[in-house]
């Protein structure tokens, strides 16, 4: 039996617990024995990307110390995984010691984004999901260009029973979230958001899904403001949904 440790991420824990619950249902259903370290907090992405390097380093160090002995770590957030893959080494190079760098190097190959974990580690695409809705997939930049997840999410979604996938125009264009960019440059972020919403609405989908609740918080918040009928849903919730336990009943 595969064992994995769930790093839920700070914002999923606090704002989107339903994504975490769905990830647990999904992973246990496909035979993963999960644990959850209660000491976990944040990967450091927000601090790193805003320029608070020392603070990001402390969080990165906590992450490595917490997970160095686990079999693997699964993270339902592509941007947090990209933070770990792209930025930890630089932080440890500059601020860490040799021991920490070694521990990180040993841990890194065992850190997976959720869709990668399913397709690459578990080698499963059909997770037995059922989601009878029209869905469009938003390719979060960190998943697309940071992790190069490529077709993985489509392969997973394609095996969901009842789903109707609607292609999204300008798939590779950023939605304008960008972490603190959405605050510091709120007006420009909104202009980017407008463009993305135009493409999303054109799909006539009921749901917009992604590997990352951060983009979805931004898109979903605007959809709610405009009452335009489209809803956001993390991919874990689609993949967790079954005929016995449909998404609507578990939210």
């Amino acid at each position, binding site marked *: 039996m595969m064992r994995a440790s769930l790093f*839920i991420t*700070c914002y*999923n*824990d*606090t*704002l*989107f*617990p339903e994504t*975490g*619950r769905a990830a*647990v249902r999904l992973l246990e259903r496909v035979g993963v024995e999960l644990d*959850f370290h*209660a*000491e*976990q*907090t*944040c990967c450091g992405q*927000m*601090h*790193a*990307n*805003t*320029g*608070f*390097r020392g*603070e990001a380093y*402390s*969080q990165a160090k906590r992450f490595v110390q917490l997970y160095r002995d686990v079999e693997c770590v699964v993270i339902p957030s592509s941007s947090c995984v990209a933070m770990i893959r*792209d930025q930890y080494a*630089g932080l440890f190079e500059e601020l860490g010691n040799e021991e920490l760098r070694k521990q990180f190097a040993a841990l890194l190959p065992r850190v997976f984004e959720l869709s990668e974990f399913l397709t690459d580690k578990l080698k499963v695409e059909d997770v037995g999901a059922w989601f009878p809705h029209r869905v469009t997939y938003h390719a979060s*930049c960190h998943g697309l*260009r940071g992790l190069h997840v490529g077709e993985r999410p489509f392969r997973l979604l394609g095996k969901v029973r009842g789903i109707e996938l609607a292609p999204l125009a300008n798939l*590779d*264009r*950023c939605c*304008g*979230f*960008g*972490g*603190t*960019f*959405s*605050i*510091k*440059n*709120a*007006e*420009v*972020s*909104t*202009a*980017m*958001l407008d*463009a993305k919403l135009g493409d999303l609405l054109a799909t006539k989908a009921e749901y917009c899904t992604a590997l990352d609740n951060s983009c979805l*918080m931004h898109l*979903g*918040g*605007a959809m*709610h*403001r405009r009452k335009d009928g489209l809803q956001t849903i993390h991919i874990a919730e689609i993949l967790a949904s079954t005929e016995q336990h449909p998404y609507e009943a578990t939210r």
Partner: protein
Amino acid sequence: MSAPVMDPRIALPFPEAALPILQNSQLRKNVAHATDVIQAKRNRLVQEKADWQELRNSAAAIRAHVLANLAGYLEEFEVRCTAAGGVVHWAADADEARKIILGILRDEKADEVIKIKTMTSAEIQLNPALEAAGIRATETDLAELILQLGEDEGSHIVVPALHVNRKQVREIFAQRMGLPQLSDDPEALTAAARSYLRKKFLSVPTAICGANFLIAETGSVVIVESEGNGRMCLTLPRTLIALAGIEKVLPKFGDLEVLLQVLARSATGERMNPYTSLWSGVTPGDGPQRFHIVLLDNGRSDILARKVERQTLQCIRCAACMNTCPVYRQTGGHAYGSPYAGPIGAILTPQLEHMQHAQSLPYASSLCAACYEVCPVKINIPEVLIDLRAQVIDQEREQTARWSDPMYLGMKVANLAFASSPRFRLAQRLGRIGASFFTDRDGWIRHLPGLGGRWTLSRDLRGMPRQTFREWWAVREKAQSKEAR
């Protein structure tokens, strides 16, 4: 509209400078259309190159090698160029570069110059200095001419008048060239510009140009262009002055094989640009008989000394990063308050200003990394942006006013909360109480005070759920262990 401010020392911070542009739907339409057209051409030509990634790797390797051995290649260039009859000048900063150029023009007794589009000239604010010295400068690049006549500023490195459409060009030409009957047909517009410029080419004996590349091995200067105006300026005048950043050097003539392939494809979506001019010093009886080149540092040595930032100098100014950038797409170039706009401008400008100005630019990006993906010399722009942000925050750490910046305060508080899970749980509970004051009956937040108001500007926020994930997990664990017993 008044002319945009393109001097980073006095420009507004990016978020404020962007505001009026976001209201200018015509300009935004022009920018989106033009960048779409260039990008589509670029993508088509990149796709036909099966070895595109290898070409990128080669181009990046050549540029990185140059930067690692810059002093040697510059000295080699100086020796070869001098031997070929050129005069090499070294300028530590913009002020020195302007003085050198004005000095040469004074010796030439020039009261007028013709210019080829050169970003470096805009960087050192050369045109205002020429004007102050009583020297009339005529831009001969079509886009630069449009901007000069329209009293506007460039908004793109390769296509500086990209924010202007042809109806607007017609207005400018009709008014400034005294051609009220001019149509907005592209051929008519270029014909008007041609006849306006031809007189200048034939009468003004002094020209100023930039450089796309300098070749150390031969002492040559390389200029690529599309209109032939450059070729005119490089061949007809008596005296030619080139201004080039010190990073522009390439080791060997043969390196052009790689760089010209990636440059034309990335910049204009062409297999080869229409005009490529190369010359070495002076050729008796052929072309300009006096050739000066000013090699400009202006902060580049400092950039070179920094491990992460050094790659900024690999840039060959193709602007592919601007064309693909979703931020630039919304704001165009003027919001950047610098001749260098877009992702490359966001990293280059603050560094050229020694991080004393333009500190908002490293934040003018959602870090989507589209720029890195297209960069033909593989500059990891997001990585540099993040490093520059760290420099900006390190500056803020020194200031006593930092605690009155809500973003700074919020980041420090969040860091305390993330340092241990009991603290994080406490912060979650306090957050839930705080959020409840702003949460409407349907469970959504529509208005937040302070920084949060920047979020609710355009987005609602779902109120905090009753149970965090960790609370749910703890309850589940307890139930499961009871079951097991």
